[in-house]
């Protein structure tokens, strides 16, 4: 058995986070929030490209929150937590994407 002494002695919930990670995370989050807000507020973007840009920033920011605030990383969290996150992403994409697809398709076939 290969053992990683640090992992064994300090459980996930007792690892003291660095102040710097929070400040870094905060900084990234502010930047990633301000840009989409500024885009919709100040520029005159069309709906579709605007939504794509906003979504991209949201996805990145959610990743930042996971990394810097929830302190998620593959080394630190148990692998089962990682699996559950992966499953949640798959299930979320399938459910949300599937639901929008099904109902959108149905809507298009309805009488106006």
């Amino acid at each position, binding site marked *: 058995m290969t053992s990683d002494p640090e992992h064994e002695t300090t459980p996930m919930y007792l690892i003291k986070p660095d102040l710097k990670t929070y400040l870094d995370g905060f900084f990234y989050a502010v930047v990633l*929030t301000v840009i*989409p807000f500024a885009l*919709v507020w100040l520029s005159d973007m069309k709906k579709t490209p605007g939504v794509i840009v*906003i979504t991209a920033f949201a996805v990145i920011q959610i990743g930042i929150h996971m990394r810097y605030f929830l302190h998620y990383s593959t080394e630190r969290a*148990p692998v089962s937590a990682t*699996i559950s996150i992966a499953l949640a992403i798959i299930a979320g994409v399938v459910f949300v994407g599937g639901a929008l697809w099904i109902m959108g398709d149905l809507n298009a076939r309805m009488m106006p």
Partner: protein
Amino acid sequence: MSIDSVPTIHEDLFGFKHNEPDKIDIHGERALAFWFYLMSDAMIFAILFANFGILVHGTAGGPDMSEILNMPRVALQTALLLLSSLTFGLVTISALSKNRNVAIIWLCVTFALGAGFLILEIGEFSEMVAEGATPQVSGFLSAFYVLVGTHGLHMVFGLGMLTVMLIQFLTKGLTLPVLSRLYRVGLFWHFLDLIWVAIFSYVYLPGALN
């Protein structure tokens, strides 16, 4: 009877090293269970988002997103929640440094920021109701209220958890169970901020686009 020596123990796919039960890490199990719970909760929000996406055009002649959108307030709410994530980080750091009084101060600041967020949200809802944009008007407004309101309800529970943490800081001190509970409350609090990112990106901001 031949009694075996200690068996060979392998680390498995879950990264879990099998120990004897008297070394069970109950707080680690609770942390893991809380991750599982958060993923389940994330599915609740995923389905509410899907529901919003399906009903967003069902305005039935009532107001649409661009008409109920108040950008400064959303920006302020976002700022408050993001700041509260930072201050919760400071709670965690000072609690793990055994610095109880500082932790309590940051906990109160976090509570105030969260409460400020909720007051703004209640203000938003009551303004909308006063203007006649109630959830009964259209499918779109129903979906809006239930998605934003579910996040708000989580925030209320979050504030309750912060209060419980404050009392336990004062009565129990920074014991292991309290610190492990603080970790889970922290996960919950940061998770709510994460959901809010999805809400302002998916619900509010597209309303400001042409």
